[in-house]
């Protein structure tokens, strides 16, 4: 970052970050975002972890967060979230909010004018852009933007799998939840079980997608208020968890993926962080799989290649001219590992009873 920039205040801001869950098979991005900022050489501000479950590990990680608070589940709506955020704001004024979970974004978008009136900054996509990249509308978006995507059907009844092969949907198929989760299935019994499991957690419709053999490549970046991609970092997954989440990945430079991301973000008029997930098919084509409206859980890799995206986001929110970032060097690997956080009974009790940890000693 440019040390001579005349508006350095973001370096001392208080940043609230959601997504502090850290289940090894599917971690939220919050801890990685916080870690990027904590390890940025110029950042000296406070980091506040926001979570939805008293067992979210990031809420107790004193080396990463200075304080932590529980929020009401997204399904309780924007009014409950506003009430809780106001309580937190009275306790410790927040300068920037970085939402890191798909399911909560609608509530935060709704509260954006209120948050701004409190002095809280956030860079989020607007509601139309957010909705247009939803999994249920991805095919329409791709058709408009001229981008390839695997053919997808919305399924509201597992009976779809009784005659899908006769109807032109042979196995293997990918069964996906409307917000999260995806499973490759190879037969009727497996497909029905996956459909019912995903529907129980995320509701209907469930998406059924044609399986494209190939490998996944991902891109993350921040879009400024002109929808220009800043600080892109691209990665190929080298190892995945049972849920298909990256366990190891390596930076790449793929011009086709970059062009796809630029096309989509311009078409959507995107603002804020995002992750583009694409599939490089064995047929040589690049298919869009998802657009996630937030930083990915592998965002710490951006710090590793000198393109600290959470810090870039803060600089943009401060109105700074974005600094020149070094080129993302291809061939930089990350390997994730699970780690235990030791929590005293008094800390757990405080979180369960008050939903707050005002000071996390490292």
């Amino acid at each position: 970052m440019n040390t001579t920039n005349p508006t350095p205040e973001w370096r001392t801001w208080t940043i609230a970050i959601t997504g502090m869950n850290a289940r090894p098979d599917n971690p939220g991005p919050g801890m990685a975002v916080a870690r990027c900022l904590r390890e940025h050489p110029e950042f000296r501000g406070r980091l506040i972890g926001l979570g939805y479950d008293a067992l979210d590990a990031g809420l107790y990680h004193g080396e990463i967060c200075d304080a932590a608070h529980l929020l009401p589940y997204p399904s309780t709506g924007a009014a409950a979230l506003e009430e809780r955020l106001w309580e937190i704001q009275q306790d410790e004024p927040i300068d920037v909010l970085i939402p890191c979970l798909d399911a909560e974004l609608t509530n935060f978008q709704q509260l954006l004018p209120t948050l701004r009136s409190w002095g809280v900054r956030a860079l989020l996509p607007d509601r139309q852009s957010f909705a247009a990249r939803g999994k249920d509308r991805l095919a329409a978006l791709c058709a408009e933007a001229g981008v390839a995507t695997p053919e997808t059907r919305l399924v509201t009844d597992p009976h779809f799998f009784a005659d899908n092969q006769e109807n032109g949907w042979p196995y293997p198929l990918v069964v996906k939840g409307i917000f999260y989760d995806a499973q490759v299935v190879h037969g009727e019994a497996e497909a029905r079980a996956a459909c019912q499991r995903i529907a129980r957690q995320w509701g209907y419709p469930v998406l059924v997608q044609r399986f494209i053999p190939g490998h996944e490549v991902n891109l993350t970046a921040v879009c400024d208020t002109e929808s220009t991609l800043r600080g892109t970092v691209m990665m190929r997954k080298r190892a995945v968890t049972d849920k298909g989440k990256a366990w190891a990945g390596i930076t790449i430079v793929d011009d086709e993926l970059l062009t796809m991301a630029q096309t989509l973000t311009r078409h959507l008029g995107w603002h804020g962080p995002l992750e583009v997930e694409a599939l490089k098919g064995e047929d040589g084509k690049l298919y869009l799989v998802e657009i996630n409206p937030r930083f990915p859980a592998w965002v710490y890799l951006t710090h590793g290649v000198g393109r600290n995206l959470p810090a870039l986001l803060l600089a943009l929110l401060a109105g700074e001219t974005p600094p020149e970032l070094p080129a993302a060097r291809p061939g930089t690997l990350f390997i994730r590992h699970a780690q235990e956080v030791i929590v005293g009974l008094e800390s757990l009790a405080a979180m369960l009873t008050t939903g707050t940890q005002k000071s996390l000693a490292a």
Partner: protein
Amino acid sequence: MSHSTAPTLPRRMEPNRLRDLAVSPSGFAFDARSGQSFTLNTTGRIALELLQNGASIEEAAGQLAEMCGVATEIALGATEGFVHQLARSLP
């Protein structure tokens, strides 16, 4: 082995594309575009470096034949085999 026409590099293995491959002295090759990596023996590493620098298959085979002290036709067959194997690794 005899060739009626000179063997040519597959399109995906033109020198510009091959230069996406970073090769370490130990023979570890990393494709910056696809993220794929593989290891090469010394002969393979030298052959790749020659191709990256714009040598044709025949020119690379000629230089390898000289370096390794084998007949040009043997080196040519081996280089062609190497090129086809490499092409399968480059999307």
